[in-house]
């Protein structure tokens, strides 16, 4: 057991004692020297080269700088962040989601306050709604890199064959499903084995049924009540959608990848997906070709009490560590990552991640569906964030489990909301 005190000693010794920078100063001079550690969420084969290209270009321009990339993927970035937090080894620049995840980093004083920098001229080159998504307590902490939103992707040939137009209202969508089902086609492929799939439907539909002010009060653990009747309305609408458009409770045993495959194989008419998945649904190697792929926003019901023009989605971006020894340099690298040229690189295939930079998209190089989706994001009156990241983890879990149980037919809308309210109470 002699190892234990030694371990403790090592832990103490390895903790950096450097002073923390809490607020970034836009006037601070940049010295292009030293080492910069950057943790990204682009670890997959398709996205990995983006930051590698960026880092190489930056180092070529500034020979005194070395950039060390830690590239994680969607699944591993959470664990990696927690590890680095626990060992006080946060990289200078790190990935963050909006909502509770970023909020926790801000609460733990891990992220530098970038308000002054983002209010300067450079900040104006970024989409304002995306910058605001990283605001906590009136201060801005994150640099958005790209935008993401949820759309219904559909097969144009199947729609044409069934004589269906792109639905304008939720009621039209249900009617279209009936037509497709009558023809023996699965209207919407859903694989809800991972419960966030179903919860993404809930998020978009809530924006239609519950006023924005109510939603935002409920997202804040301090003021959450979740008593608006619109919540039950949404869940009941979802049940109806599931009954008329999908395979029903069976979806809880299907992986979302299998469901996506059904659209790609031309076996289902629609699949609800993120804009960053468009290039996955239809490509040169799938049955459904890119020109046969179309998209629309999940439509609002005729009498919506909320905001019919709202869209579910959130930007994703980067923060600077308060433990960084060279905040001006870290900031300079983020400015480099958000130049219009690098924005265009990110928006175009193979990356296909719509840049958050104003003018960071060039329709000539992009998948037309992504261009159209970007236009829809720009026109949306309100971007409602993902329910599983905007809420307190306990509330998020209640939503995830509840919506999955609802779709599996083992819970009613009222029971789901009871669970959410109990979790919100618990999270206070």
């Amino acid at each position, binding site marked *: *057991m002699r190892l*234990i005190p030694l371990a403790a000693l090592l832990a103490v010794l390895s903790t950096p004692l450097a002073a923390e920078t809490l607020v970034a100063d836009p006037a601070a001079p940049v010295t292009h020297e030293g080492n910069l550690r950057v943790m990204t969420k682009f670890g997959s084969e398709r996205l990995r080269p983006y930051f590698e290209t960026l880092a190489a270009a930056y180092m070529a321009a500034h020979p005194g700088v070395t950039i060390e990339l830690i590239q994680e993927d969607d699944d591993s970035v959470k664990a990696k962040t927690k590890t680095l*937090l626990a060992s006080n080894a946060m990289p200078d620049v790190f990935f963050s989601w909006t909502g509770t995840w970023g909020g926790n980093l801000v609460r733990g004083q891990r992220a530098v306050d970038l308000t002054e920098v983002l209010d300067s001229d450079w900040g104006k080159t970024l989409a304002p709604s995306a910058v605001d998504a990283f605001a906590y307590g009136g201060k801005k902490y994150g640099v958005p890199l790209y935008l993401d939103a949820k759309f219904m992707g559909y097969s144009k040939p199947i729609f044409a064959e069934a004589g269906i137009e792109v639905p304008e209202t939720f009621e039209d969508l249900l009617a279209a499903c009936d037509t497709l089902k009558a023809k023996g086609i699965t209207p919407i492929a859903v694989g809800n084995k991972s419960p966030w799939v179903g919860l993404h439907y809930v998020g978009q539909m809530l924006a239609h049924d519950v006023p924005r002010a109510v939603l935002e009060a409920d997202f804040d653990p301090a003021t959450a009540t979740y008593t608006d009747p619109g919540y039950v309305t949404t869940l009941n609408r979802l049940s109806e959608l599931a009954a008329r458009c999908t395979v029903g409770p069976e979806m*809880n045993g299907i992986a979302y990848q299998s469901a996506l495959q059904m659209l790609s194989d031309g076996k289902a008419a629609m699949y609800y997906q993120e804009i960053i998945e468009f290039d996955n649904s239809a490509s040169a190697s799938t049955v459904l070709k890119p020109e046969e792929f179309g998209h629309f926003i999940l439509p609002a019901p005729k009498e919506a009490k909320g905001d019919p023009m709202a869209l579910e989605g959130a930007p994703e971006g980067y923060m600077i560590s308060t433990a960084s020894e060279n905040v001006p340099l870290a900031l300079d690298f983020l400015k480099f990552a958000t130049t219009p040229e690098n924005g265009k690189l990110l928006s175009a295939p193979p990356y296909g991640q719509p840049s958050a930079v104003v003018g960071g998209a060039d329709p000539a190089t992009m998948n037309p569906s992504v261009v159209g989706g970007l236009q829809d994001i720009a026109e949306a009156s309100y971007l409602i964030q993902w329910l599983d990241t905007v809420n307190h983890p*306990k509330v998020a879990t209640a939503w995830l489990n509840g919506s999955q149980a609802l779709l599996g037919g083992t819970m009613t809308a009222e029971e789901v909301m009871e669970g959410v309210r109990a979790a919100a109470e618990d999270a206070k």
Partner: protein
Amino acid sequence: MTDIHQDPGAATRQEPGATSRRVIQEFWRLRWVAVAVALVGSFVYWPIIDNFRVSLTHQDIFTGETSPAGLENYRRLTEDPVIGLALWNNLAYAVISVLFQVFGAFLLAAIIEGLGSPRARAFWRAVYFIPSAISTTVTGLLFYFIYQPGMGLMDGVLQGLGLGAWSRVWLGDPDTAIYAIIAMSQWQGFGYAALLFSVAIQKIPAELYDAARMDGAGALRQIWSITLPMTREMTGLMVIITVTGAFQVFNEVMVMTGGGPNNASQVLGTWLYEQGFNQNDMGYAAAIGSLIFAVTMACGLAQLWLNARRRVT
């Protein structure tokens, strides 16, 4: 050990350095166990002690703050409905596994060892063992696909047998999820258990069976009155391994359902993971760890007690 104590006075009467040299010599004898004790002590025992300390705190990974929580995390254990569900699932795991991997495997081993040809015995032992050699990640993923509605083998087989109506969303239905996982686990584990029973059965002297045959005992009779009692120690060992294993189960559930849907297939291990590593509640996770420790410890002690009692009677 005795040689040192032959003349305890002699050492002290001689030069003062002799005592310390004896002590050093004594310690030198421990070199054989030093590495194992240090390793097992630091990485097996100490974390379990440390776990109790953590379970009495609240930890915030984002701020890096730790605050004392008293018994709060344990109070939450009693109020958390998922804990009851997880305990039930672990229990179901244990009971079904004992049926298949102790009693089923025993019978199978008795059948295999009753085969005339040694090659046939070796063949069947090896075939049934194969799934145990494969990682639970692989078998979990495999069964995840087997159970998939539409693409899975399970539905295909049921339809082929004209039992299409029985087909279900095995992993997506809260009523069947945990049992589908347990079934996979039996598929994977019975061959290993059967192999261990085979090993025990091979140890039984052949004369016992010869004598029984002389008395006109049939095969079933021989299994009942010779094989079973002669492998009692192995059976006891297998029960304890299976039961404690069932309360520590993690991989199968993690890979196949992650505890879903709506926590229906949650077991203690996955709930600990969910609380500690997804919900950042390390203190509560440690309290769940203490519960796992208590349950497995109780199983172990019960087994020791049973063993002791059996020896007396």
